[in-house]
């Protein structure tokens, strides 16, 4: 299904004459994508976006290919980070708004559905206070910063029904899934502030800034903050 969409997109493509090589690279990338050689395809698409940074389709194809790779558990090489995929997708849509309709249906892009960037493309904005609850839910799971070599240690999950919130926390020096502590509570929003209440202990106050980043009141950088829509990856 997504392949058909890509093919269609390819046929509709007509870049500027000055970008002959970008077009060719994009075509080569698409052939590789079809052949299932996704890493090589991503390389070609990336080269195409570098040859012609205004080549909307190449950006789109790169985003989609990285999306499939991410689905298959490929990280860091190539850069399948959510931000990277979104950067290319957003660029593609900015250059050619028609890409958005396709992106909505393209299963390749499923990994980025729960991000601020995707909801931005859908029209929400963290700069608008009334969009704050929608973004919290749209992203659903939020990630604290990577700590040392141990990656993200803390996550917050916002659920709709009953305004349930789940906070999960593990200690540095432990491995993922090991010794993870989970707390369930509720959340409520007032303006840009989100209050999380748990059965025991003080409530946690988070604030969503206009860039779509959460920060915990009184939290320090590098351990609690920032809290974003993407987990720490490829950094130690």
């Amino acid at each position, binding site marked *: 299904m997504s392949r058909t969409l890509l093919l269609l997109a390819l046929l509709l493509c*007509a*870049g*500027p*004459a*000055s970008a*002959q*090589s970008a077009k*060719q*690279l994009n075509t080569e990338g698409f052939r590789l994508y079809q052949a299932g050689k996704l890493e090589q395809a991503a390389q070609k698409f990336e*080269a195409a976006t*570098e*040859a*012609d940074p205004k080549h909307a389709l190449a950006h789109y194809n790169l985003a989609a290919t990285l999306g499939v790779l991410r689905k298959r558990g490929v*990280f*860091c*090489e190539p*850069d399948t*980070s959510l*931000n*990277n995929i979104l950067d290319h997708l957003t660029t593609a849509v900015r250059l050619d708004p028609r890409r958005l309709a396709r992106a909505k249906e393209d299963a390749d892009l499923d990994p980025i559905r729960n991000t601020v960037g995707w909801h931005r493309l859908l029209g929400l904005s963290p700069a608008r206070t009334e969009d704050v609850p929608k973004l919290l839910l749209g992203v659903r799971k939020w990630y604290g*910063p*990577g*700590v*040392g*070599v*141990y*990656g993200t240690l803390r996550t917050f999950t916002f659920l709709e029904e009953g305004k349930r919130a789940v906070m999960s926390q593990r200690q*540095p*020096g*432990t*491995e*993922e899934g090991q010794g993870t502590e989970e707390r369930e509570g509720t959340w409520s929003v007032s303006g840009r502030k989100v209050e999380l209440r748990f059965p025991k202990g003080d409530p946690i106050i988070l604030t969503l800034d206009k860039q779509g980043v959460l920060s915990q009141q009184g939290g320090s*950088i*590098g*351990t609690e903050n*920032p809290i974003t829509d993407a987990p*720490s*990856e*490829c*950094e*130690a």
Partner: protein
Amino acid sequence: MPHLEYRIKPGDTLAAIARSYNVTLDVLARHNGISNPNRIQSGQLLRIPAAAGSSGSTSRPLTHKVSAGETLSSIAASYELTVETLAQANNLRDVNRLFIGQVLKLQSTPSASTGQTLNTRSGPPPQQQVTSGTLPQQHTTPLPASGSPPSIHDIMEVAFRITGAFEGGRATSYQNEDSGIVSYGKHQATLSSGTLGTILAKYVKRSTNPAAQRLAGFMDRVNRKDSSLRKDAGFKQALLDAGADPVMSVIQDEVFAQKYWPTAEQGTQSDKLKSPLALAMYYDTNIQGGLAAVRTATAKAMKGKPFSELAYLTEFNRQRDLRLQGLAEDKRSAARYKWGEEKEQLLNDAKWLDSSRSRVVALQSLVAAGDLQLRGDAQGLLHLNRYRVRGLSAGGASTTQPQQPAPTSPPRADAATLVKPPVVSKPSPNFGSRNGTDIDAIILHHTASNNVEADLRTLTKPSSKVSAHYLIGPDGTMYQLVQDEMKAWHAGESAIRGQKKPGVNSRSIGIEITNDGLGRTPFTEAQYQALEKLVPYLVRAYKVPMENLLGHRDVAPGRKIDPANNFDWSRVRRAVEASTGGTVATGPQDNNTGNASTPTPRKWSLSPSLDDVLKKGAVLKEGMQGPAVSELQRLLGLESPDGKFGSNTKLVVKTFNASAGVKMPPGLEGTATKATFEALKKKSPPNPIAGDVIAKAGVNLPEIARNVHAAMQGGLTSLGTNEEQVYTNLARLNHDAKLITEFKKVYAKTYKVDIVEELKSEFSNTWLYGDELNKALSYLSPRSSPPPKKTNPPAPITPGNKTPSPSPSPGGAKERSGKEWVNRFLPSNKVSDLKEPFQSKVRNFLTALTAGGVKYDINTTLRPPQRSYLMYYAREVASGRLAPDKVPAFIPQNNDAPVNIDWAHRDAQGKADLTAAKKAAVAMDKEYNAAKAIGKPYKSNHNGGEAIDMDFAPAWGIGKSVVDATGKTVTIRSKRDLLVVGATFGVYHWNYHGPKNKTDDPHWSKTGN
């Protein structure tokens, strides 16, 4: 007050100029009324104040470093010295033999010239080594007892021999296989570039050889660059005969020396290269084309790294080879879409490009052998692939030529002492390829735990998706997890001084230090000792500049905090400095204000972080070193940010604070605070042309400049010049004289080069380019002087290209209608027959079409009203709508000639032959072969020269991209798209305003009618 003058050249900084004249930056700035030292312009004339008095020193430096092209007398003149004094002071035996890079003493004793008035000079500031005391021995070039250094002329000769060996080498070499049309002689001058023409013109004038006389007969065609000469046997024979004439050989060298040598020599000078090999390489590249592109690519690749001349030349060859490879690929892929002769030509060009890569191989072999002086083997011969040519030593220079010290490479221990400290191997599966990115940074981390076993487990476990090259345990053990050549996953989404590309993981070595990072657990002495071995080793092995020795927190501010605050950076830095002599940082040392012959080692304190400056009110001041200082320097636009806040940085900060109105307490004017950074960020990015956009006709000159420049530099993946992009963008200037002048200014201002010169160097010479250069230049010639033939609309295929015949039909008596009328009152298909201003509009439209790759075929431009009359009524009669005897007579206007036609075929008695008349009209109509709609006389825009009929290939230009009159690139997807583009130029298609029928599909006019 006596003063010197200095004209600013591209690439100069005020600080550098100030240094070289031994004045302080702010004195120089004040003296010239410059408020912002970062805003100086190339070409600006600076007044250099006479020596800043207190020290009593003179403005004249003690030494002068010889640049290519300088003579002893020119140097002497520029310092108001006599040749004899100079020769004597430097113990020169032969005043004609200077060595490039040789340092000449200018004064025998420093006090001799105190108070001397200096003359005005406009050359480069002298390369100053010292300002007082005696010259350090290592800077002089001791002259060998026998022989003397080669002159620039000697070097040129060897360079000619080298290039000559590649190009064919003999005055008679002849080749007619590539797009140069005919390439001839030692240097393979091509007809298409015009160089062959220059040579032949000189030869014909100077030689009495019979071959010269024969060649004189060809000069007309030579000057036209007539491609029929490619296959002219007489021309070939004349060339071959002339090649045997010694005069020809002399002229060939002469022309090439004039045409291609200066660019090469200037190139080496501005790239600060000094060896004869560098000159030979630049010359050879310039001869082949693409010197500017290769230089730019090399500079980009070497940026931020310390390098020796050898390393620079190696990179230069690599970039040149990449370019050739890329160009060959381009030609081959272009050939895929072509057929016949054009395809052959492209494939041939690709083949030539491929084979020309061997010259790069040969030159690189000289670099690899370290033969910067072109001395050659024991016999003095240079080995170039299968050729042997005489090197410099054979030219009389000594074989004990001193090797010049590499210009920018710091004194460094040799490779033998570069020993890697012992490591314990613990391979991690988490790594990738650097994809060709060079290592130029080292990033330190803490692991956030004190448990080295846990750290190791995480760093080597596939699911963690993290790794580093090294991990230093609390006991000082160095674990190697990922090989240096591979990319480890330690930096994540980060940026070095704002630069995200290349990715930090790709360009760096990551070192993890086991520590919980809470700021309480000390990093152990064993860890520091390990780092003191490992980091200096890595810095030297990969030539990492000091400013790129960073913490994770520096490349991911706001997100990462490692290594923790209690990490002692100074221990690591000191170890690096001790190992490298403290000169690893790129560029001139900031702390070296020119008052010492050797940089005084200075104690640098670690600067607060940028974050602390911006949020906690920390202050950056003299004597500090760190990433925040680098950032400050970068924002200030300092030439080479070294992260050290020295007196130079202080002056620039002071000047900036003052000019930007940043209020500082007395005594702290030369420090940087949050306010300084805020003012710097407000400052527009260093774009001297911001706000200079010419609104006229919506033409964005900076944008065109950017596009053209980018096209010539080649993108990241496309090497070489993107010709089409150059054409399309230059076409947007519409041949408008004013716009062209403005554009040239903007271009020169932005890129510090003359666009014409850059085009010439990019598209220049021999066999690869030629036509392209002319085409590109044609866009820079205003309309008043018609563009060269190449850019004129291609000759139409149909109908005959004849000018309209003003001849009336046979006078007096009327002539019967019939086919022969079609050949009278002929139309034109020349754009030049159109009336202004429509003619210009059409020209602009057609230029844009050509640039976009849309071909057109013009059927008609001007159609005489008489022809309209004949066409219109022939159709009326032929179609039966009008009886032949009812056709009205042509009523001439504006003194137009009458049309004496007998539509009714009357006999002497005046009786009409309607059958014959109709038959004749049908024949006429068929012959006119007009579209469905024919304008009545004096109704059609064609009659006034304000319409044009044409067809396009591909149909309506679909699939091509054309830049419209507003500068927008429009991809043509339908007929309508092309109509809209035409309308922006004021050329309206028949269908533009509404009519849907296709009755006059080829028709465009000033109104659409």
